[in-house]
């Protein structure tokens, strides 16, 4: 028996605080009148801001705790800042929407808080068990969130579908993890890396690794594990979809990056093929399948599949430039998603939400500012300079070319041209098509306007001030590779 040592709680301070705050908020919500959504939401935002500040404070330290199961490093902090701010923004995005759609349950922000906690644990996981715990905490919250509008069939269906497929992916991940444990005798990431460096690539360990990566690919919805994405995006309430697009994707991306570069670092030549295949398939499907979509949410689902494909190109490069590119890409992707979803959440026709692309017809004349913002977002997502989205792709392709992954780079740029088609199609509908009968109103919501203004400004002005983001991404990438 080992003597009991109290673990050092310092590195996990933000996570522990978030857990306590979330539980307090849950109790507060239960104690208050159930209709009191807004105060819970506001407190949730404050809690996340507080956690953001804490993460900032511990930003540069690199330390491990809980028997080396949990690490806090610059890479983790960078991604956590993204995730935490993404979650806070998601709660802000939801405020008017939940009123209109009558999903004002106080559990909503609380679940987002717990999901965020799960994501932060994922990002900091340094052990297969910690990884799984974080992942499941996050996933369970997400399943519930998808079906939070429980009296509509679509939302329930989305939640159920997400749950069933998510459980399948967890199964694969666990099976892969057990194989990895079986062949290396360790669950700790560093121990696995040491063991793999010694034993090299065997069939068993590669199988385990591929299954593990497949499970993670599910979470970032890389093709061919993307099936759930369009249905869940379409079925879930739009504010929840926004949350799905913004935060969990980034957490899962951070996780897959850490797992690939850390424990499986010695097998880079093996997993590079897997990641490259996932990436090419995602870019191609994301570009082609989105063309036929008529629903904005489904379109954004395919668009996010494509974006994850680009991010994986950076991972396939498997060098500092690639990791840096992933982080820059994730940041810009998050900003663009926030802007786009803010617009989608703002628009309504009479008493229903705008979900069909054809509903946008004539937006350029009726809501010129909204249409302009949407245009900027779409051009940015398509990666047209001088907008921010271009730079995300630029660094990704730079990493790919540096690592001599020319095929990946060529597929990437060609699919980005195909993808440009459906992005500019939205612009075409807004500006070139005659307006429909029903006018589109823009909800008067200060928070949405603020978020939209900020994300538009970032999309426009990133070109002038790329320095800070690049520098911190570089530092974070170096921390991961160290």
């Amino acid at each position, binding site marked *: 028996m080992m003597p009991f040592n109290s673990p050092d709680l310092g590195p996990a301070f933000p996570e522990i605080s978030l857990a306590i705050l979330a539980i307090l908020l849950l109790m507060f919500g239960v104690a208050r009148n159930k209709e009191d959504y807004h105060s819970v939401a506001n407190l949730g935002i404050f809690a996340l801001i507080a956690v953001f500040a804490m993460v900032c404070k511990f930003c540069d330290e690199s330390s491990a705790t809980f028997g080396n199961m949990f690490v806090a490093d610059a890479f983790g902090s960078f991604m956590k800042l993204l995730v935490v701010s993404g979650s806070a923004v998601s709660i802000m995005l939801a405020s008017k929407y939940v009123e209109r759609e009558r999903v004002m349950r106080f559990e909503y922000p609380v679940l987002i808080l717990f999901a965020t906690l799960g994501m932060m644990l994922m990002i900091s996981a340094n052990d297969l068990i910690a990884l799984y715990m974080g992942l499941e905490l996050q996933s369970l919250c997400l399943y519930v969130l998808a079906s939070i509008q429980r009296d509509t069939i679509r939302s329930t269906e989305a939640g159920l579908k997400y749950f069933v497929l998510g459980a399948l992916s967890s199964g694969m991940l666990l099976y892969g993890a057990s194989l990895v444990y079986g062949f290396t005798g360790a669950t700790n990431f560093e121990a696995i890396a040491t063991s793999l460096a010694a034993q090299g690539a065997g069939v068993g360990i590669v199988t385990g690794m591929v299954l593990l990566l497949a499970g993670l690919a599910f979470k970032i919805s890389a093709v061919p594990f993307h099936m759930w994405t369009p249905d869940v995006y379409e079925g879930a309430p739009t504010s929840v979809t926004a949350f799905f697009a913004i935060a969990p994707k980034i957490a899962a991306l951070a996780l897959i990056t850490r797992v690939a570069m850390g424990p499986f670092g010695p097998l880079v030549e093996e997993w590079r093929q897997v990641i490259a295949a996932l990436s090419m398939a995602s870019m191609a499907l994301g570009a082609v399948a989105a063309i036929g979509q008529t629903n904005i949410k489904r379109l954004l689902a395919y668009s996010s599949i494509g974006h994850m494909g680009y991010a994986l190109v950076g991972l396939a490069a498997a060098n500092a430039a690639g990791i840096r590119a992933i982080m820059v890409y994730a940041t810009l992707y998050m900003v663009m998603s926030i802007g786009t979803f803010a617009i989608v959440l703002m628009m309504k026709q009479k008493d229903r939400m705008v979900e069909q692309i054809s509903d946008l017809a004539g937006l350029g004349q009726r809501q010129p500012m909204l249409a302009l913002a949407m245009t900027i977002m779409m*051009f940015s997502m398509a990666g047209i300079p001088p907008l921010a989205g271009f730079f995300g792709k630029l660094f990704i392709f*730079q990493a790919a070319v540096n690592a001599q992954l020319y095929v990946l780079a060529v597929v990437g740029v060609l699919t980005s041209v195909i993808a440009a088609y459906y992005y*500019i199609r939205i612009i075409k509908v807004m500006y070139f098509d005659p307006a429909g009968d029903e006018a589109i109103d823009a909800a008067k919501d200060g928070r949405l306007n603020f978020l939209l203004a900020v994300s538009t400004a970032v999309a426009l002005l990133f070109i002038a001030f790329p320095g800070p983001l690049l520098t911190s991404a570089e530092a974070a990438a170096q921390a991961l590779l160290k």
Partner: protein
Amino acid sequence: MMTFPILSLITFLPLVGVLFIFFVRGDDETVARNARNTALLTSVFTFALSLYMYAGFDKATADFQFVELIPWMPEVVNINYKMGVDGISIFFVLLSTFLTPICILASWESIEHRVKEYMIAFLLLETMMVGMFCALDMMLFYVFFEGVLIPMFVIIGVWGGKRRVYASFKFFLYTLLGSVLLLLAILALYGKYGTTDIPTLAGVDVPFEMQKWLWLAFMASFAVKVPMWPFHTWLPDAHVEAPTAGSVILAGVLLKMGGYGFLRLSLPILPEASLFFAPLIFSLSVVAVIYTSLVALAQEDMKKLIAYSSVAHMGFVTIGIFTLTQQGLDGAMFQMLSHGIVSAALFLCVGVVYDRLHTRDIDRYGGLVKNMPNYAAAFMVFALASVGLPGTSGFIGEFLVLAGSYQVSTTVTALAATGVVLGAAYTLLLYKRVVFGELVKPDVRAMKDLSFREVMIFAPMVILVLWMGIYPSSFTKPMAPSLEKVITDFKADIAQPEAKP
């Protein structure tokens, strides 16, 4: 070297106009009037500023002048904000700043709805164009190069004709497809040499195998922009559907981006590959000159005819560049400037009658010389310049190109020269059918001659065309040192044995 960032000022001044127009409020009438005035004022001021820069430009040196260098992505990526002009690019800057106010004036009355957005798009376009010609860093070049797509897409798509959606998509996707390969080529160069600085890259010796691939990637981008046959199919659609001013800027400046790219990037950075692929360029250009001239001969739509003639004229430019001789380069450069003004003016000529009759069908016109004598005179100057009559700008360019190509290949010269003949045929036929003949149609008879605004548009262009034709030295002198440097550097690169990596 100057500390005052005049190039950035010229580049980004239009954005100031954009901001002003963006915040214009009021009823539609006021907004439209203010937007027009602001746009015109901004663009005229930008033009004046670029003239001021030209006055301070040292015409005797081939070096880059007014260079500005600001680290863009410090510590992480060695990509800089570097601007500078030499004898080649300064003329394109002048061309861009000259044509923009003309475009805005040309749209004064013909654009009636969404004037505000239209003027914003044009000023944005001006920033992108000027920036592209000033950029001395390849990544910066690329950002401006592709950034042009956004305003142009909107201009064609919103203010275009019936098939505007098709034309704008084709324009956008076609050019994007070409330029993304350029991006990869830039990144490949960056990966190998760790810089995207154009003058530095011009000095490195790229291995021949790599050069070939890079050259093809460069070409994919520039050939679409020029456009060279068979990558030209987007051009007639874009021209026909674009509003007049859109066509003017497209023919006047955007097509030159391709030629400028060949001159600025392909030749200095990839000299061996340029020599290696020159026959390919010659073949495509000769086909372009002859084939598109024949196609132009068969057109019933005025804009389409001029669009095809643009492809043919730009064929001369690419021949001239890849003769890799002094005359050829001089000719290509001159031809680009001349074409920039002449084709722009021809599109304006179409715009004038289109504004009155709302058709571009050649057969709907005839006999305009009787009721529109001033118009007929202006049109004649530009038509003859397009034909290449001595005394007009068109002659100098074509003559120099053919003189250059004669040193390289008599066959190419002979075939290209047939294009001159065909060019005369379709242009004069167009002129005859529109301007001469009986003035029978009542609606044509009712057309009024040029208004004061239109005279103000055409007058400077006529003067320029004649000036360039009669006294070309004032244009060739300042560009000579830079072009000579391109050729001497090229010869030096070719002469030294290939470095083994």
